[in-house]
């Protein structure tokens, strides 16, 4: 994924689609954590959740952005 790309004539930062993708991944992870009871072992759920999002976003952008 390039740093910036041309979307219908508008320059869009490459991080934006990566962020949207990581939000989607995060929604799935969040659902799974709730469903399988991971949150029961977590002290601060909201903090855990936002850290999860940052980790996913960091990982994806490190992997996908050249």
């Amino acid at each position: 994924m390039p740093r910036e790309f041309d979307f219908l004539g508008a320059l869009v930062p490459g991080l934006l689609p990566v962020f949207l993708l990581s939000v989607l991944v995060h929604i799935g992870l969040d659902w799974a954590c709730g469903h399988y009871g991971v949150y029961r072992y977590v002290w601060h759920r909201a903090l855990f959740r936002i850290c999860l999002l940052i980790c996913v976003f960091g990982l994806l952008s490190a992997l996908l952005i050249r």
Partner: protein
Amino acid sequence: MSTLAELLPARPAWLRLSAKMRRAGRDWPDDEGPRWLFVVKTMLAAFLALWIAFRLGFDSPRSAMMTVFIVALPSSGMALEKSIYRLLGTLIGCIAALCFIGLFPQQAMLLFIALALWSGLCTAGSAMMRNARSYGFVLAGYTACMIALPALNQPLAAFDLAVSRVTEISVGILCSAFINDVLFPRHQSEQLVQKIRGLYLNFATLCHEAMQHRLAESELERRHMRFATEVATLESQRSAAVFEAGEIRIRSRQLHAFSVAAMATLTTFHTLHQLMERLRRTDNSPIPALMQPLFDEFSAALQLTDGPARTAAEVAETRDKFEALSQRLPALGEGIRQARADRFDAAQKLDMETALELLQRLADECRSLTAIYASLPTHRGQADEDSAALPAAYSPTTPPGIVVAAGLRNAFALLVLATAWYALNWPSAAGAVMIATIFCGLASSSPVPDKVIRSTTLGFALATPFAFFCAFFMLNRVEGYDMLVLSMLPFLAFGAYVATWPRHAGIGIGFNLMFAQMVAPENLMRFNAISFINDSAAQIIGLLIAGLMFALILPEHRQGSPRHVREALWHETALACITVSSHLRHEFENRMRDLLSQLGGAGTPMDEATRVIVNEAMTLLELGHAAIGLRRALTARARPVSEVQSGIDTLAQYFRHPGPDTRQAAVATIDAAMAACRAQGAAELITDLHLIHTCLLDPAFDTAALASVEENGHAA
């Protein structure tokens, strides 16, 4: 007689004061603490958002700050829910605005018509939802105006406007979400637990007191209204809690199952109670006295050693009691039948059988209600299997007349104002158009539109002089961000504190919005007193116009208007006789309770007309449930009874056109259906038919009552 206190010497004043201070200090964490926490939270998020917006060099950093004020709600779940819908609404609105600009570049009238249609549609959607989603709808409508109107003559600027609007709002939302959910979480799920306990406790007390004849008729209506409102709040809190991290999402279905079961149980209870009341009133039948021992058993099962169960752990005991009771009931009923049956005539026998059947049904429903309640804390209870069969959501029902009127009003207001703006040569008028559109939309989904507009106008007007003072006497001497914070903080903290009082929340939010809007902190501050006065006048005029629109255009068509709710109630009952759906019973119950909750939504004490409608609604609820039960039993039968089907059809006809003739026709066909059922030995149909029959013949269920009440009201 002298008491000890009088004998003692009077305590010195400073000691009394210190005792008072100590008491105040002790109450502070429960009373004032959460309020100040809210103020701190809001201020932190607002200035964080403003700082980021300054650093990133946004065109109007105040939008980020205003977003924080708009989504500032007491619990994390509610704030997150509103944020998500705000973001979605803004995105959709921006896309719509770009489409309109692309379709009608520099065509003022066409653009106005398209915008009016769009914002009318969005407002209608928001009036239909009446929950957090409705905010997203309003936003989609007015964001389109916000982008398209300023870009009317510079279509190329629209894209930049849209991008910066979305960016600013996202920054505000991210800051508020981070502060609200991560730094100062206040979980909705905990409040949900309290709500469920309260709901069950109210239900149990209601049953207990009614069975012991300690409840007056008017009190019963009041409790039913309160119950409907509580179920509606429980459902909206449930939907907010879904946005929080944690396990509440798995429980969501269980919680829904609980509220559905509670509604169904209360309806069965009400049917039984009404049957007994009718028997007592009309013919002094011996049946209520005969049934009383059974009722005593029932209310004993609801009670633990000290009142009804208060927690899910305690309710397990109640569940076991109901388990035993519902197995014992057939034998108990048989005992009564044996003892007295020979002395009854046919009609009394029918009443007896109906009452016993209802009590059996009630005991079974209580058992399943308590079972669901008891299984709530466990990870996955038996309720899971039951709830898998349920419709997933509580669907709000707004009378269609109100929805259409809201859309029309908004479209009309926008069209007239935008045309006036175009014709006038007043540069600030665009602000008035925007504010009028926003508040026409917001007020349409509120049960108290006048109050929303009035309190916001008050907040706006109050904020104007303070904003003037802050902008022209303080900010012009300010150097740097920390000084800016110091000069704005006292005013905004005051606004946020006022917003924590439920009665004046609108004033506080209005104050902060207007203050941030008018002070307009920007990287390159512009100090222009003339445009300040123009803009602030435009904002307030816009609000006044919104109020005027509500008073002038279809003023009767507002949320919770008794006439529309009543029409919708009859319509829903007619649908219950016709619609084919596997969840018909739940859907019908949901919709009826939702309509009832709209009547009480305004929080005003019930007037005579509303009481008549509540009474009518409760009887319609009984009739609808009996009709649904009848239809279900009919389809289960191998050989259908054609008379019953025609009875249901005439009943639907009556619900569609309520009047003495249709009612007579319905009574006649139901009579014929009962005779046919007896002849064909369809005993399972007779209970429901008998219920419908007694409801229809009940003199208290009088469609003319409302007309006479309204006439009296007009005469007075």
